[in-house]
């Protein structure tokens, strides 16, 4: 951790601070928000009254408060989607890479199938079958995201399988499960950290796209993607209502992408420069 912080470049620090900032906003949303983000009032429609720092949207909801609470939803959905994807990806990737043989072949064909579907359309299809809601979006994004993780973890496990210390442990009579959990998994951790961080950016983007299309969580909930979608109908009168949530999405995605990039350069120098 110490060496890690020392190796962080200036840009890396900026992105790190950016991530902390978004987390702070999400955690302290009730304190930072000036109004109830869900309270509508037709009289305040698209107005700029006092007490509403960024004015009101087409339903008279406080734009600023919705942005603040939007950080919460983005982070919650992004993290839970990626965690779920990571667990499936880890199980499949480690099993395939360590076992090799027909199991590897079989699991990788399943991964190929999931990679082949157009991700946004698959997420849409899943959320249509399950009905809207936070759980649905998380599930849909996990379904879309796990295969890529499984593939990356599998190739790492495949390489580690023939490492000398693994063979040594095997000769000493360690069980397969023990080898995977105590030798292979810990050595995959840097890689996992990197793909997890970068994956958050992807998940946030996908969630925003789903919300933008009206297929994400309940539209009355304050999501940035949903805010862009409803503001676009009033874009000619109030273009800034598209800009605020849009910039929030871009900011969150940029900080996670840059930080993930930085992590990769430090933890996994062999893949430097590749995404």
């Amino acid at each position, binding site marked *: 951790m110490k060496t890690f912080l020392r190796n962080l470049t200036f840009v890396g620090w900026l992105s790190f601070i950016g991530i902390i900032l978004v987390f702070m906003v999400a955690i302290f949303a009730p304190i930072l928000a000036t109004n109830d983000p869900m309270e509508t009032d037709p009289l305040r429609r698209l107005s700029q009254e006092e007490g509403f720092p960024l004015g009101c949207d087409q339903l008279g909801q406080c734009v600023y408060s919705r942005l603040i609470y939007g950080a919460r939803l983005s982070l919650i959905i992004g993290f839970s989607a990626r965690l779920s994807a990571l667990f499936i990806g880890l199980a499949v990737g480690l099993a395939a890479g360590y076992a*090799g*043989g027909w199991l*590897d*072949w079989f699991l990788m*064909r*399943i991964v*190929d*199938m999931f*990679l*082949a*579907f*157009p*991700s*946004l*359309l*698959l997420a*849409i*299809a*899943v959320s*249509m*079958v399950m009905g809207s809601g936070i759980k649905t979006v998380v599930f849909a994004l996990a379904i879309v995201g796990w295969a890529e993780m499984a593939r990356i973890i599998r190739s790492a496990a495949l390489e580690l399988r023939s490492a000398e210390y693994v063979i040594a442990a095997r000769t000493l009579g360690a069980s397969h499960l023990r080898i995977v959990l105590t030798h292979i998994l810990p050595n995959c951790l840097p890689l996992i950290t990197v793909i997890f961080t970068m994956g958050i*950016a992807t998940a946030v*983007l996908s969630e*925003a*796209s789903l919300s*933008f*299309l009206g*297929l994400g969580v309940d539209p009355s909930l304050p999501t940035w*993607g949903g805010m*862009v*979608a409803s503001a*676009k109908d009033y*874009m*000619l009168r109030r*273009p800034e209502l*598209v800009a605020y949530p*849009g910039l929030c*999405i*871009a900011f969150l*995605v*940029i900080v996670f*992408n*840059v930080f993930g*990039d930085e992590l990769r350069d430090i933890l996994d120098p062999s893949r*430097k*420069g*590749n*995404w």
Partner: protein
Amino acid sequence: MLEFTIRRLSATIPVLIGILLIAFIVLYMIPGDPAQTIAGPRADAATLARISEEMGLNQPLYQRFSSYLSRIYHGNLGDSAVSGKPVLESVIEKLPYTLKLAAIAMTFSIVLGILAGIISAITQGRWLDRVCTVFSVTGISIPVFLSGLVFLYVFAVKFRWFPTSGFRADNTLMPFILPAFTLGIRSAAFLARIVRSSMIEVLNQDFIRTARAKGLSPARILFKHGLVNALIPVITVIGLDLSSYLNGSVIVETIFDLPGIGRFAMDAILQRDYPVIQGIVLLGALVFILVNLVVDLLYAWINPKIRDEMLGKTAR
């Protein structure tokens, strides 16, 4: 090469069947009785039973799957639940718009991406490289719907260079430029990253040093020796882009009001027209698999070393 082709194909066929299975299961899991949907809410039990019988809904699942497979094999993707038109027919009708969009987007992507990647690689670490990197990170991080709306606002509403929306039958190039730019700039950002790192790697190789020692001009080294070798990984990226354009077209065609596949999918989603959605998802997956197959074969054909590596790796 033959061994490689056979191996690659044998990995593709199970994936194809698996994709059909997934698509079938998703359709099967959709809430509501399909017979009820067709018969309408006030149909009596006898009519429902007859329609179920006709549609083969009473058969066991594996039989329904096999008849589904043979239906797909004969090019029948089912009929739209809303218009009753065959899905494949509508798709073929709308495909040219999306293809045109994808072709222009890809042109933008390749030109901008490769250019930015090369500039980045040869000015590595200097300010021009930094500028390119910032653009590329931003391009990757901004959602398509946002850049689409921004371009629409700036170039169509403020500057009036392009039509805001609405596609007219005269089918000119203009309505496609902005949406294609929106899609293209995102993949250009990805491409620039790959070209940059691949170019830097190639420029550090021995044969580049030899070429330099021979006294060849920098431009000749860069384009003849560097670029040709650096572009090989780019083929893969361009192949992947094709698939991402289908995702992107759902959003971009909705924003810019183009009557392509993406718009068709979005309309079907809003109307809960499941056969259409399933058909489009399936086609998207099929196109992805075929494109990847072609890319991999092309890749192996261009570079025998990679072929051997892949064979060694695929020898599981």
